């Protein structure tokens, strides 16, 4: 029989007991991942062109001992906001990946699939062309671009109040293609220093992080995550087919609308600060699904925190690997992500798609 063959060929992840999810399991997994997140943040704080020892940072962070003026400036004003923003961006993109993969019932979906990224990019690039600042003007335009595009895609593909997944995917692909052409047009017709800014934005850049960006995005992300988590059981059922979900009493259309809009909103906000960072929303949910199983009550928090860990680590690499110069973080995630993803597909491709 085919099933048993598959089992011997692909080792099953050890942690899965197939016995369902309990609150205890979710809390323990969450705490472990939060511990890892804190360790990654502390290590990342200590790394960079200026040396600040991990011990000093530890002492400072628990309130014992002070850093000297210069170290404090570097840690508090430069590294910390950047690390925290990277965390929020990774958190949101990864959360978006899990949710879109479930709603579209497509393991290759990611938060950019509805055109959020290309819309945001057009907005940002127009901002750069007209010489707007990176603190307010460019993020605002890119957020408006993202939201406009998502509303356009949802508007085109909703018929009689229903959102059909295949139509939504196709519309997203086409709108993405169109906006990519617009972006290429601007790149081709720009030649001065603005070109560099454009390219950095397109590959994701966290070097402009400010606390104000955190205070704008954090409350929004918390609210949306809360709503999405409330829908986690609904998402489990939707993965098994919309008809069955409807039958069990899931308001499928409501879950879809709220989730698409919520995710679009938070990813739109974070990428307006960070630029486009690919692969996070694809890879982190897949790793978590392999380790912890597909139940969204566990998968959603694990992916979100895992996404934060992953992007902080990637951004630390981006700012230290060719120091004192910097790479756009999107380059690092793509370098790590693409080969890893191909490896995953080779290993267990049919596990996701076979019926």
């Amino acid at each position: 029989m085919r099933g048993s063959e598959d089992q011997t060929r692909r080792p099953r992840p050890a942690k899965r007991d197939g016995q369902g999810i309990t609150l205890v399991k979710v809390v323990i997994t969450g705490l472990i991942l939060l511990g890892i997140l804190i360790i990654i943040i502390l290590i990342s704080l200590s790394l960079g062109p200026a040396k600040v020892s991990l011990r000093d940072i530890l002492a400072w962070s628990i309130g014992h001992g002070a850093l000297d003026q210069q170290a404090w400036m570097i840690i508090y004003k430069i590294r910390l906001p950047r690390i925290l923003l990277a965390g929020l961006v990774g958190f949101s993109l990864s959360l978006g990946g899990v949710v879109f993969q479930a709603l579209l019932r497509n393991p290759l979906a990611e938060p950019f699939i509805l055109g959020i990224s290309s819309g945001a990019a057009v907005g940002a690039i127009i901002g750069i062309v007209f010489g707007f600042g990176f603190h307010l003007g460019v993020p605002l335009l890119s957020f408006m671009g993202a939201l406009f595009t998502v509303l356009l895609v949802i508007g085109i593909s909703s018929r009689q109040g229903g959102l059909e997944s295949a139509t939504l995917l196709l519309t997203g692909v086409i709108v993405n293609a169109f906006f990519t052409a617009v972006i290429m047009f601007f790149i081709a017709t720009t030649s001065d220093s603005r070109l560099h800014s454009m390219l950095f934005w397109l590959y994701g850049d966290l070097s402009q992080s400010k606390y104000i960006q955190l205070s704008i995005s954090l409350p929004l992300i918390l609210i949306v995550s809360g709503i999405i988590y409330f829908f986690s059981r609904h998402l489990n059922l939707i993965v098994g087919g919309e008809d069955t979900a409807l039958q069990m009493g899931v308001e499928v259309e409501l879950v879809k609308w709220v989730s698409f809009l919520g995710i679009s909103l938070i990813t739109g906000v974070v990428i307006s600060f960070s630029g486009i960072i690919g692969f996070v929303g694809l890879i982190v949910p897949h790793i978590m699904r392999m380790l912890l199983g597909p139940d969204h009550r566990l998968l959603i928090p694990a992916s979100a925190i895992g996404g934060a860990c992953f992007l902080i680590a990637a951004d630390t690499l981006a700012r230290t690997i060719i120091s004192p110069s910097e790479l756009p973080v999107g380059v690092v995630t793509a370098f790590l992500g693409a080969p890893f993803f191909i490896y995953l597909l080779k290993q267990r491709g049919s596990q996701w798609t076979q019926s």
Partner: protein
Amino acid sequence: MDPELILRGVFFRYEQQWCLRGIDFELRKGEILGLIGPNGSGKSTLLKIIDGVLKIPKGEILLRNKPLSTYKRGDIARQIAMVPQESTFRFPFSVFEVVIMGRFPHLGLFPFEGEEDVKIARQSMRLTHTLDLAKRSINELSGGEKQRVLIARALTQRAHIILLDEPTSFLDIRHKVEIFDLISSLTLTQGLSVIIVSHDISLAAQYCHRMLLLDKGGVYKIGEPAEVITADTISTVYECPVLVDKNPISKTPRLTVLSRRGEGETLA
């Protein structure tokens, strides 16, 4: 005893064309009602209407003597469960995880199942002989195993009416019989009432207490299998010449489809 379900003058249309026109019937407690009819005669639509997923513009449905429209979706899901023709999970949920999803309509705001829910799920798995499969991924199962798991999920819903939409269409004969046997024994032991859509008329006739023949959105005939399945009714509704005799063992009607090649002609 009052019927579990009564339909009176039920109409439905998706677009312009009426696809159900004036359906009347009742589902009695503890019976297996076979729903047969040609493709496009409205069988699946009828199930979705009974399920409350599609709203009817005209007519009346009574679930335990109360209009279906007065129930909330969750209330319906605690009384009626659906077993789909086929279910594809994109991600590798374990069998246990799929079965316990049947508790969805019973959970409140707290999103985790308790010991009682686990007990009910395991009991349903025992009844459907799927306990051994608990840790397997749903996507690795054979067609017959998968159907048994979906039936276990329906039992976990603790519904008293189960609707099955062609549950045996992808199965070989052994697994077809297995599923019908299972449904038949569950009806007896668990006091369920069942509506089952099937294209395998002779097999369904062996298990169903009554059968309903649907034609172009209307009830062509309803009654005991021997009344409904005659050469006359079937060949008229399906527009296909058939021969009906008796199954020598069960004495239920047995259907043989006749080739249109014409009488006396044989394969050269």
